């Protein structure tokens, strides 16, 4: 390859910019999101505050779902509404009338203290009367505040049933002073209603939703505790253990056949490479058509008189047959790509090198063992990494052959968590697990090969 000499201008960066932006947007960012989904619960805890305002200090954090004792309530101007649905609100009215001292009073009173007597056409309150308080000990007077909340100064007091004009309406959110129910020693703090669920008695409740995220292993624990996790992992590893050695041997044979440059070699290469472009789902169905009750295999076995009547290969009682069919399907589908990698590796070995070995007395299998295999080592390494990573993703073949229940694999569980159970976090935890296994196996292959070559003198 001829490469232009180093240039100071930005042309190459401009050329790769679209690809980088695209991959960042649709590869790196989702990858990061996936990681976050698996280990980060974005509404895990609710901070509670010293005062019922968002700018006051946090005094404690209560985890999502935590039981609460409600100590007090207060209304506060509505904090920015982020589409919260279940908030508890309260209206305050700005009223003007005559106070208990006979002076004119103008200020704010909670809707709980005012009975609206008249409204305009749009339903806005215009005038009302102060509600009487029930009970002997109750204060017969109602405080009028300077601002629409309890904490502001009292500007005057109204007699019960005093008529007032309503000049302004404010909608406030209720805040609660809460303390964790199971831990009375914990400091109490204020939290707005939208994050809480208040029980009927008005004295207890629970944290409905947190506002602060928290790293958590909860999703990973749920994945590990899932009853399908063990079987899925075991089956995935079993399929790999059976498949990869078989695949390597078959791919090597195919590559050697192509490399022998027999007549029609390019035709054979085309046929051998056919499965590379094939959909895993289609191949799953293809092997289903062979192994199903009235499929090809039974028809042939029956025709040869080996069995008498169809044998059910793909049932819950014959999971070994299902796994066998999956391995066979994957062997059929994914060996070709290993073959292409190996053929490319063989083509990189000069003819004279093999001829030299032959001339110096190496028979065919000796040439394979002493010359081709050692020189194919990098290709084999790449093929192994690729195949192992892909083997962790076996998915559609499994569904096509087993329905996804009887025999399950990791990718299928990720799909099930997302699709059937609607649990993005656990689904992402599975995805993350697959990613970690892939990276670990790649590192393992790279390491083991390097370690071996370090032993030899260079």
């Amino acid at each position: 390859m001829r490469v232009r000499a180093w240039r100071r201008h930005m042309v190459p960066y401009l050329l790769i910019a679209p690809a980088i932006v695209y991959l960042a947007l649709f590869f790196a960012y989702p990858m990061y999101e996936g990681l976050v989904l698996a280990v980060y619960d974005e509404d895990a805890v609710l901070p509670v505050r010293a005062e019922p305002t968002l700018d006051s200090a946090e005094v404690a954090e209560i985890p999502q779902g935590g039981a609460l004792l409600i100590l007090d309530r207060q209304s506060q101007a509505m904090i920015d509404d982020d589409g919260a649905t279940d908030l508890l609100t309260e209206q305050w009215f700005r009223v003007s009338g005559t106070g208990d001292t006979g002076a004119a009073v103008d200020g704010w009173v909670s809707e709980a203290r005012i009975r609206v007597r008249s409204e305009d056409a749009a339903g806005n309150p215009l005038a009302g009367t102060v509600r009487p308080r029930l009970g002997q000990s109750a204060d017969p007077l109602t405080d009028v505040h300077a601002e629409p909340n309890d904490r502001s100064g009292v500007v005057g007091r109204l007699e019960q049933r005093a008529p007032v004009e309503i000049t302004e309406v404010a909608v406030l959110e209720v805040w609660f002073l809460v303390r964790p129910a199971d831990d009375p020693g914990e400091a109490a703090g204020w939290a707005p209603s939208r994050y809480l669920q208040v029980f009927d008695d008005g004295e207890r409740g629970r944290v409905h939703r947190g506002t602060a995220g928290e790293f958590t292993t909860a999703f990973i624990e749920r994945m590990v505790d899932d009853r399908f996790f063990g079987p899925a992992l075991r089956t995935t590893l079993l399929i790999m253990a059976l498949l990869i050695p078989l695949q390597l041997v078959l791919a090597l044979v195919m590559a050697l056949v192509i490399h022998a440059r027999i007549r029609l070699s390019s035709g054979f290469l085309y046929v051998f490479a056919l499965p590379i472009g094939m959909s895993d789902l289609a191949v799953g169905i293809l092997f289903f058509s062979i192994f199903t009750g009235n499929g090809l295999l039974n028809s042939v076995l029956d025709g040869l008189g080996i069995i008498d009547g169809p044998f059910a290969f793909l049932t819950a009682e014959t999971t070994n047959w299902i796994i066998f069919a999956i391995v066979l399907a994957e062997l059929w589908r994914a060996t070709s790509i290993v073959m292409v990698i190996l053929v490319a590796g063989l083509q990189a070995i000069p003819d004279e090198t093999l001829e030299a070995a032959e001339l110096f007395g190496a028979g065919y299998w000796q040439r394979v063992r002493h010359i081709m295999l050692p020189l194919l080592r990098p290709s084999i390494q790449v093929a192994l990494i690729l195949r192992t990573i892909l083997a962790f993703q076996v998915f559609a073949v499994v569904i096509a052959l087993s329905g996804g229940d009887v025999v399950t694999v990791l990718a299928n569980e990720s799909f099930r968590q997302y699709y059937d159970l609607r649990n993005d976090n656990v689904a992402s935890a599975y995805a993350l697990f697959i990613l970690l296994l892939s990276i670990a196996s790649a590192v393992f292959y790279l390491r083991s090969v390097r370690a071996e070559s370090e032993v030899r003198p260079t």
Partner: protein
Amino acid sequence: MAEIRLEHVTKSFGDKVAVHDASLTIADREFLVLLGPSGCGKTTLLRAIAGLGMADSGRIAIGGRDVTYLPPGRRQISMVFQSYAIFPHMTVRDNIGFGLLMNKVDKAEISRRVNSAAELLHIEDLLDRRPSAMSGGQRQRVAVARALAMEAKVLLMDEPLSNLDALLRLEMRAELKRLLADVEATTVYVTHDQIEALSMGDRVAVMRDGEIQQCDAPNTVYESPSNRFVGSFIGNPPMNFLDGTIRRSNGGVVAAVAHHEFSPAAEVRPLIEGLRGDRVTLGIRAENMETLTDPGPDTVPARVEVVEPLGAQNLLTVQVGGRLMKVSTHPTLPVAVGDGLHIRFPADQIRWIDPATDKVLYTR
């Protein structure tokens, strides 16, 4: 005892005949060079001897054993490849010992032979290194050592020096010649480089279009080519060829070339008289003509067209009766383009060629 005998060996690739009816006997311990332009079939013939490309027909016998269709590993031969074909994943020691290991030679003997081959090539200190970091010259030595360690009766070499740069090639050529003189093997050496061929071979077989044109000692091939092709292929500059007409006059025969008559030497005369047509071609090497500033009794006038000083000699392109030819002169002879010269053709240096067959009529 490893005489190599080729009988009517023919090999084609599809429609293309690479080697046609080659027959040749290479004596035990002889050093034979197969020389020819690229595509002449010399490598194909070597590979047929090696067994790397089986002949279509004919017979190849080594030491009296018919090996025509024997796999290469069973022919008891050894070879140095053009690209050296060093096994890149093995140390030099394993490379040299590979053939012995494959032939189940015991360990002590392998180690002895590997060491002595390495010593011979002065690569003892490379034995435990990998070829990847080695220079072309070092690899070449490994390839030769690997071939020699086999101690085979037949040693084949396929353009072993062609991948070296010019200086190294010169050095290696001499060293190989010294080395192979001590090796008791029949050697077949393929090259397209005539200097290599002439300087190294006991005999040189010149090939063209799949056929062996001539197989003789280097001097003979040079002095006395068997046909026009050999004369033109060997030697730098190639032999000059002048087309002439035969004139038969009372009791004698002469060839007329550009108003000048050449009389054949006595031993050639009957052969020319026997020619059927009246055309003949004269061949003469550039260094075999005498260049004179003054006309003599049997000189031909010529005009200098190009002067190429080459150091030890000047190479002139001169025009003789409308034909161009190359003449070498001593650098002290003062000539310039456009000068007139007089050239004398010694009768014993003229090769007479039948234009119908391109064969030289008389060879010593």
